[in-house]
C-alpha cells in the first residue's frame, strides 16, 4: 500500500502486511493470515478491515466476505476481552467438557456466543482444539488451559478477572 494512504492498522501490523503479500507466488495467499492478524488487533473483522484487506490484496470485498464466512475463528462482531472457548468434543466430553461449559455459563452468566455486560468475558462452545490427551480443555483467546476441573476453571477465570483490573 502506498505510504500516503491511510491504514486502520498499527504501523507494525501494516508493515507486517506489506511483507506478507510478497511471500507467496500469488498475493491472495496472504488473505487468511491477514484477516486473522487484523482480527487480533482490531478485535473482530469489521467492514473497515474487509475494505482495507481487499484493497491490499487486490480482490473485491465480496471475495473477502466469502472467506470470512467460512472460517470459524473469524468473527464479524466483537467478543469479550477474554474469549473463553470450551471444547466439548468427544475426548473432552468424556472427561467433563459439558459440565465445564455449563459451569462457565453459570459463573459468567452468559450462554454460547454471548458476552458479559462489562465486555470482559465471552463464551463459546468449540470443536476439538487438540488437547484430547489433556482433557478437558479450554482456550482463552489463544492460551490453552488443560486438565481442568471445575475448581481450576474458577481459578483460571479469577486470574483473568484480576489481570483485567490491574
Amino acid at each position, binding site marked *: 500500500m502506498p505510504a500516503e494512504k491511510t491504514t486502520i492498522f498499527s504501523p507494525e501490523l501494516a508493515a507486517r502486511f506489506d511483507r506478507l503479500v510478497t511471500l507467496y507466488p500469488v498475493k491472495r495467499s496472504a488473505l487468511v493470515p491477514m484477516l486473522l492478524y487484523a482480527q487480533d488487533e482490531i478485535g473482530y473483522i469489521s467492514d473497515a478491515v474487509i475494505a482495507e484487506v481487499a484493497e491490499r490484496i487486490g480482490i473485491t470485498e465480496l471475495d473477502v466476505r466469502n472467506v470470512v464466512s467460512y*472460517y470459524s475463528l473469524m468473527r464479524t462482531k466483537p467478543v469479550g476481552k477474554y474469549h473463553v472457548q470450551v471444547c466439548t468434543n468427544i475426548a473432552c466430553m468424556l472427561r467433563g467438557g459439558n459440565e465445564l461449559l455449563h459451569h462457565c455459563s453459570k459463573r459468567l452468566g452468559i450462554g454460547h456466543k454471548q458476552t458479559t455486560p462489562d465486555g470482559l468475558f465471552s463464551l463459546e462452545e468449540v470443536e476439538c482444539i487438540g488437547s484430547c*490427551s489433556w*482433557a478437558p480443555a479450554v482456550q482463552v483467546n489463544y492460551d*490453552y488451559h488443560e486438565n481442568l476441573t471445575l475448581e481450576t476453571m474458577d481459578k483460571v477465570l479469577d486470574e483473568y478477572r484480576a489481570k483485567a483490573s490491574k
Partner: protein
Amino acid sequence: MAYLTTHPDVVPVISFRFGKGAADIDRYLELDGYKDVQKCFQMEPDAIINEVKASGLRGRGGAGFPTGLKWSFVPKESAKPKYILVNGDESEPGTCKDRLIFEHDPHSVIEGVLIAGLAVGARMGFIYLRGEYRFLIEIMEKAVADAYQRGFLGKGIFGTKHDFEIVVQTGAGAYEVGEESALMESLEGKRGVPRIRPPFPAVAGLYGGPTVINNAETLATVPHIFRIGAKEYAALGTERNGGTRLYCLSGHLEKPGVYELPMGYNLRKMIYEVGGGIPNGKKLKAVVPGGSSTPVLLPEEIDIGMDFDQVAKAGSMLGSGGVVVLDETVCMVEFALRTIKFYQHESCGWCIPCREGTDWLKKSLTRLHMGGAVDKDIDQIKYLAENMLGRTFCPLGDAAAMPTVGFVQKFRKEFEDHLNGKGCPYHPAPDYELATV
C-alpha cells in the same frame, strides 16, 4: 508446555529430541540436527525416494498411504514450480500429536521439508498450522527465521547451489482444511472446499504445480529415517508398516497422553498397560482407535496390533493415531450424536451427500437422544450413513458416515433403548441444554 508421556515401551525416534530444548537452533544442531538433509545432498533424488520407500513409512495423517510412493508420483519435469506442503492442520477429534512436534522439534519439520524438496525437485514449502495453535505458529516462525539466518533456507542453502523458501501459514478454524485439496484452496486464500480429483496434487496441486502434501508427523519422521537408517526404521514396526508413531491416548484412562510406540503395538496393552487402564474400577465399553472418524471397536476386538493393515482387518482404521477410550458409563447414542455434531458443523457444504447427510444424521440422533424418535429412525440413520459412503468429493462425508454405521451396528440395543418416547434412558437429561446441539 505439553510433553510426551513416558512408558518403558516407548521407542523415541520422532520424539528423540523432545524435552531437550531443540526448538533452539543451536541445540538442534548439537543433537545432530540438519545432518540428515546434508546426507541427502549427496544422494540422487531417486535414491532419497527409495530410502523412504524402504523405511515403510506411511502417511500419519490418517490414510496411511506409503510416503515414498506418494513422492514418486511427482513428475520429474514440470513447467510449473513444485511445492512441499506440511499439513499441520491437526483437527481430527482425538488427535493431539503434531503439536508436540511443532513445540519440541520444529526444525525436524523444516529438515523433512528440505529432504522432500530434494527428492522431488521443489524449491518452496509451506507449513500450514491450524489457527488455534498460535503459540506453535510463533515457535515455527522463529525456527524458520533462524534457519534462514544460518543459511539453511533461502539462496544457496548449506553452501550449495540449491535455493529453498519456506512460509509458515496459519489456518483459521476449519476441520475441512485438513483435507489435502481444501488445504490448498485455503492456502490460495479461498474458502476451504475440496477440489475434484483427478488431477491429484502430485500432478497439479498448489497454484497448479506438482505438490507433495504430507502430514506434519510424516515429514518430521523423514530426517530420522536417514539418521537411523531405513532398514533399521522399518524393523521397528510390522510388515508394510515401518517404524513408530505418536499415539494419542484420551478418554477414560488412568494415564492419557501422547506416547511414541512401535507400529503394530497391541491395542489392549496400549489401553491397560501404557494408558494405565480404566479409572474407578469401571469396565471398558468401546474404543475409537484412530480419531473420531474411525469405526468403534468392542472390548473383544482390541487384541490387535495397531498398524494400518491389522486395524483395517478388524473393520476400522488406524487413522490419525487418536485412541479414544470409553468406559461402561458412556451412552453410545450421545457419543454418536456428539461425533456427528462435529462433522455437521465442519462440513463445508460443497457437496450434497455430506452437507445434507450430516445434517439429517444430527437431527435424527438428536431426536433419538432427546426423545421422540420412532422405530424406523434407527434403520434410517444407518441407511443415510451408508448412502453417504463414497459419494462425496472428499473424505469428510465418509468420516461422518463410517463411525455412525459402526455405532448402530455394534450398539443397536442401546439405540433401541432410546425408543421409549423419553430419550436417553441412561443419562437423565441434564438440567441444561448443550449449547449448539
